[in-house]
C-alpha cells in the first residue's frame, strides 16, 4: 500500500518522513481494508498484502495487523500475507501471529515466508549476507513450532530457543499453505525443497519465468512431490477499464509514480548495499545488479503488455492477456496488483467490478478440470 502523497526527493536511504501526514495514512488504511473486503465480493479467491519498511513504497510495516482487520471483514476469501520477512523477524513471533490469523479466519490463511529485498535488511540491521541461511533456518523452526506435538528446544546458528510451545497452533493441519518468493534459480529450488508454492510477482519476462517454473518442478520431483498449477503464483500489475485507452492512461501515470518516485529510494538502498566499500571494490557485481534493477524500469507500458508482464486494457483485452500468460506458464494463482502507485481508488474499484462481471467468467475454468479453481489476489 503506497503513500501517494510522497513527492520524491533525496538521493540516499532511508526516506525522510518529515512530511508524513497521519491523517492521509488513516484514509489510506481505511480505503485499503475496504477495497480488500470488496475484492471478496468481486470474486477474488485470495486477498493479501506484504511487508515493507522505512519507505512510502509500502506502509505495511506489519501486514499481520491488516490480516487481523480483514479476518472479520471477510467470510470466504483466503487471506494471504505475502509475507512476513522471515530473516528479519523473530521466527517464533511469526509462527504465533500466523497461527493466530489461521485460527481467526477459520483456516483461510496463506502463509507467505519471504526473504525480503536489501533495503529491508538495512532497516532492521540484519546482515544481507545472512539472508539465505536465516531464511532456511527460520522456516524450519516455524514449521516445527506449528507441527511439534510436544514442547521442543532449538539450538540453531541464528536462532536459539530453549523451549518452544506456541499457543495457538494453526487451524489448518499440519499447517497453512506456504508461499516462498521464487524469482531466481536458487529461490525457485528453495521453494520446491520446502514444499512451498512458488511466488513470482512483477516478473521480468515470460521466458525467464518459464525457466524458473521448470527448475521448481524438477526440484520438487527430486524431493518427492509433484507440484500442481496451484503451486505456482504469478503476479502482475493490472488495470482494467471500460475502454483500453482509459486503462492505459491510468496505469501509465500510476506506474510512472511507482517506478520513478516510490522505487527511487529503494534503488538507492540497493546501491548502498551493493557498494560495500567506499572504493567500490566490486564494480562488476554492482554494475550487473544495477542493470537488472533498471531493466524493468526502462520498459514502456506498451512494451510490458506486449511482453506479457502487465495486464492492462478493456475487459476483452485482459481476458486475452490472461489466457496468453496462462498458456505460456500454466500457473494456477494469479496475483493482480491493481493499486499501482497513484492509480485512483475509483479506477481500482471499477477495475475489480469489471473483473468480476466481464473477465472472471471467461477465465475461471482455465487449466485442468482438477485444478479449475482460478485464484487471484487483489491489490498488494
Amino acid at each position, binding site marked *: 500500500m503506497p503513500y501517494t502523497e510522497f513527492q520524491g526527493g533525496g538521493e*540516499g536511504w532511508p526516506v525522510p518522513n518529515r512530511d508524513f501526514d497521519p491523517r492521509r495514512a488513516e484514509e489510506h488504511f481505511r480505503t485499503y481494508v475496504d477495497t480488500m473486503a470488496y475484492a471478496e465480493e468481486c470474486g477474488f479467491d485470495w486477498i493479501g498484502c506484504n511487508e515493507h519498511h522505512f519507505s512510502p513504497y509500502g506502509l505495511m510495516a506489519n501486514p499481520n495487523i491488516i490480516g487481523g482487520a480483514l479476518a472479520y471483514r471477510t467470510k470466504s476469501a483466503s487471506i494471504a500475507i505475502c509475507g512476513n520477512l522471515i530473516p528479519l523477524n523473530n521466527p517464533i513471533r511469526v509462527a504465533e501471529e500466523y497461527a493466530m490469523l489461521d485460527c481467526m479466519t477459520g483456516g483461510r490463511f496463506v502463509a507467505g515466508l519471504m526473504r525480503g529485498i536489501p533495503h529491508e535488511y*538495512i532497516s532492521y540491521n540484519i*546482515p*544481507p*549476507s*545472512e539472508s539465505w541461511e536465516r531464511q532456511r533456518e527460520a522456516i524450519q523452526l516455524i514449521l516445527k513450532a506449528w507441527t511439534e506435538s510436544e514442547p521442543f528446544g532449538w539450538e540453531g546458528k541464528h536462532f536459539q530457543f530453549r523451549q518452544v510451545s506456541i499457543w495457538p497452533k494453526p487451524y489448518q493441519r499440519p499447517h497453512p499453505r506456504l508461499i516462498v518468493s521464487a524469482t531466481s534459480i536458487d529461490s525457485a529450488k528453495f521453494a520446491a525443497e520446502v514444499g512451498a508454492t512458488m511466488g513470482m510477482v512483477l516478473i521480468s519476462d515470460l521466458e525467464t519465468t518459464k525457466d524458473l517454473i521448470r527448475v521448481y518442478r524438477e526440484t520438487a520431483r527430486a524431493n518427492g512431490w509433484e507440484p500442481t498449477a496451484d503451486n505456482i503464483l504469478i503476479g502482475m500489475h493490472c488495470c482494467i477499464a471500460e475502454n483500453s485507452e482509459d486503462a492505459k492512461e491510468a496505469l501509465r501515470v500510476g506506474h510512472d509514480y511507482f517506478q520513478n518516485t516510490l522505487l527511487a529510494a529503494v534503488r538507492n538502498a540497493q546501491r548502498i548495499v551493493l557498494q560495500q566499500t567506499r572504493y567500490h*571494490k566490486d564494480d562488476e557485481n554492482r554494475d550487473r545488479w544495477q542493470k537488472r534493477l533498471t531493466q524493468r524500469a526502462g520498459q514502456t507500458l506498451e512494451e510490458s503488455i506486449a511482453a506479457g508482464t502487465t495486464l492492462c486494457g478493456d475487459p476483452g483485452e485482459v481476458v486475452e492477456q490472461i489466457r496468453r500468460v496462462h498458456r505460456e506458464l500454466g500457473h494456477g494463482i494469479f496475483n493482480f496488483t491493481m493499486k499501482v502507485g497513484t492509480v485512483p481508488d475509483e479506477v481500482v474499484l471499477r477495475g475489480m467490478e469489471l473483473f468480476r462481471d466481464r473477465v472472471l467468467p471467461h477465465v475461471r475454468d482455465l487449466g485442468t478440470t482438477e485444478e479449475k479453481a482460478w485464484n487471484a489476489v487483489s491489490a498488494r
Partner: protein
Amino acid sequence: MERSQRTITLASGELPYTVVGEGRPVLYLHPAGGVRWTPVLERLAESHQLFIPVLPGYDGTLFHDGVDSVPALAKMIGEFVDAAIGVNCDVIGHSFGGWVATWLAVERPDRVEHLVLECAAGFRPALPNGVPSDPAALRAMLFAHPEKLTGEEKPPEVEAGNRTATMHYRGPVLGVDDALVARLGEIENLTLIVHGTEDRRIPAASSQLLRREIKHAYLVYIWDAGHAIEIDQPERLFDVVDSFLKRSEAFIVNWGTTAIPLSS
C-alpha cells in the same frame, strides 16, 4: 602509538599540531576544552593518519592576529590543510570544533571529503545554559559517565584560557550562527552527525537542524553518552565513525562477518 608534535608557520602565526597514525588523513578539530587524547582518537589512529591542530588561544597557545571569529578560524584551518596535510581529508569536529569544521566545509569544499560533527556547537536554537564554574558541576553537565575521565586534569589557568578563547571566537553568537545556517545547503559532503542522548550542553535540536539542512547527512544518537561523547561511549562512537569513514553511506548496512574487511 607515537604522537609526533609539530609546528607549522601560517600567514597569521605559528600553529602547533599533532600527527599520529597511518592511513587516510583525517583532520580533527577539538572542542572548547582544548585537545584531549581520547580512546576514540587512539582507535581511529590505528587506520587513519590524524592531524590535530591546537586552535590558537587554546591550551596555553597564543592567538593569531586577525583570527577573531569562527569563520576566520576556519579559513586559517583551510590554510593548515593546504600546508600541513597537502591533500583532501576527512574532517571530524567535536562541539566547538564541529562549528569550525562546518565553516571549513562551507568555505573550503575543495579540501573536505567526509564530515563528522560530534554534537556541534553553533546551532543551539535557545540560548545556552550557563557553564558552571565549579569543576564538579561542570563535569556533571558535560559527562554522562565522569568516572570514565582518566588522565591529568588541565591546570585551572589553562581551562580559564580555553574559556577565554571560546569567547574570543564566538563573539556575539550565543545560540544559532545564522550566517552559517544560511549556508548549510551549500555543503555537498557526506556528513555524519552524532549526538549523545544525555547531552546537557548542546540540545538534540542542534543536531536535528544540521540533519535537516545538510543535503547528504546522517544523524546517529549515541545512547547513554553526554556532551563528552568520546569519553562517555568510546566504543559506540568509534564503531559508527570508523565505519562511516571507511564505507561512506554504506555504513548503514550491517555487514555481519562476511563483508569485505574494513581497511583504510
